[in-house]
């Protein structure tokens, strides 16, 4: 399925995503993240510390949602955004020489993407020892502009 232009523009044109996870008691948790969107796989990725609350929540409940939006404090009709809902996959964490080819490639690709998108902020900072990549397998996207909504359903993997 092709993702409509306006959604792609939002996914490519913004730096901050707001990730929501919830624990086994259905208590939500929310954090801002830097993210990247990969058009080929139609997946979103972000990097986080494996001791963070969101990783802990995701190990209890893999459901995840992320919102990326443009906000206009004056005119609500200019508010525009996308919420993607799906499940998260966390890359294995191991010393680099134990990682599978596939994971290594992913790390490499994602990190490069990140570096080009967030050049200004991450400069040459390498991935931290406890950093893991979270991959969001999107099942549904909701797009809004002003009062208008559009909803997209994705086929599940496999």
């Amino acid at each position, binding site marked *: 399925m092709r993702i409509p232009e306006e959604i792609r523009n939002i996914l490519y044109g913004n*730096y*901050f995503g*707001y*990730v*929501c*996870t*919830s624990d086994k*008691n*259905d*208590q*939500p*948790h*929310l*954090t*801002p993240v830097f993210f990247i969107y990969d058009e080929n796989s139609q997946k979103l990725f972000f990097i986080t510390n494996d001791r963070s609350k969101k990783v802990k929540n995701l190990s209890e*409940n893999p*459901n*995840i*949602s*992320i*919102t990326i*939006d443009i*906000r206009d*404090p*004056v*005119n*609500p*009709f200019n*508010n525009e*955004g996308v*919420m993607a*809902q799906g499940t998260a996959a966390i890359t294995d964490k191991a010393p680099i020489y134990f990682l599978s080819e596939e994971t290594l490639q992913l790390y490499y690709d994602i990190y490069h993407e990140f570096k080009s998108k967030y050049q*200004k*902020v991450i400069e040459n900072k390498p991935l931290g020892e406890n950093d893991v990549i979270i991959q969001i397998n999107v099942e549904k996207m909701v797009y809004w502009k002003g*009062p208008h909504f559009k909803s997209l359903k994705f086929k599940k993997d496999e």
Partner: protein
Amino acid sequence: MDNEPVKEKKWIYEEIVGRIPPFSLLSYKYSILLQFLLLLVIGITLGFIFDLEQISLLYGSLAILVAVSWSLLILQLAPTLRKFRAPLSKDENELLERYKGILFHKNHYEAVPGLVIFIPFMFYLYYFGTDLLDMWLGKSPHPILLLFVSLLIWDICYRMGLGLWTSVLALWRSIRLKKLAEKRSELEHTPYTELRYLQKLDINNVFFGLISLLLLPLFKTDAFLVVITLFFMSFVTLTSLYSAYIISIVPWLPPDIYNLVNESSFAYIGTSLKGKTHVTPVVYVFDGQKIFFNTSKEAKKLKIMQENNKVAFLIDKRDMSNIYENKAVLFTGEVKIYGIMDIPMHFIDMLAALKLFMKKYPEYTKKYSTSELPKAWQLTPIIARILVEVKPVKIIYWRGAKQISVPV
């Protein structure tokens, strides 16, 4: 903070009672009930032995009831203050330690006001020719009766003194706390839970004051004592009300977070239903104490919150040019959704929130009012846009890359 075990803080009377079995074996509520019953039994027995009128028994019971109700209220102070966590501000912590120190001073100053009331009152009763004793006990009562009545009078006076002592100290503490709160920096504050404890104690004292009205029938033949009682009642009630009010306007958020919440325009609300999460931006207002956001009646998040009112609510300041300047605060907890049923009880709150929205987002209000909008978006005050209050249980604050957990 020193780590030595906290000594149990007790007032003189409680210390004595706490050492005598069976009172020492009971929790404080049951101990008070037992004292109440014991006094009643003694009073009624004495009444029968000395053949008192029924009205005398009623007067006695009333006095015992007042003393016991006062005990119930005032004895919540020590256990509540014991639960108190230290404020995250050196000055405020010192103030509260000083407050506790004076309140439960080892020299037992708390008994002084009681004595100051008791001694003149006894003189007044025995030497100034009031007919109160006759009214209570009949002509020429037996010395044992007089002894019992004097004991009751001491019980009442001692507690009246405690009422004055605690409400004056509370007012002093509240005024000082409010002043110190204005000088806070960064993350200094006294947590919400602790402020609510203080407020609850003040409200207890309001009731303490009101209960003194029950004494009026005992003094009905003596205009002077009626005036004194009314004066006492007004003093304790008003002092405590004022103290509770001051506590209610002390910010419960430290200045860094207060300013972030106060100055930002948008927030994100995360909800979860059966594990599936949902996150969208919302507009919100902050009145210095409460955080409200707005949602359309048709919104998915509203339907989720109606089933599971646990939320995550995030406010942030984002700046790509300098990420070390980025700040965010996450409130996790519950929401209260205001509906039509809440209008009678919360009308003023709801109206105040609506006004804040109009002030903070004037253009929004204008645009929402136009009728070309879908029904769900039209701003029919209170009804189409649903008002939701965030009630945080936990606060996490990020400054740059640092994550700080802030007690609520």
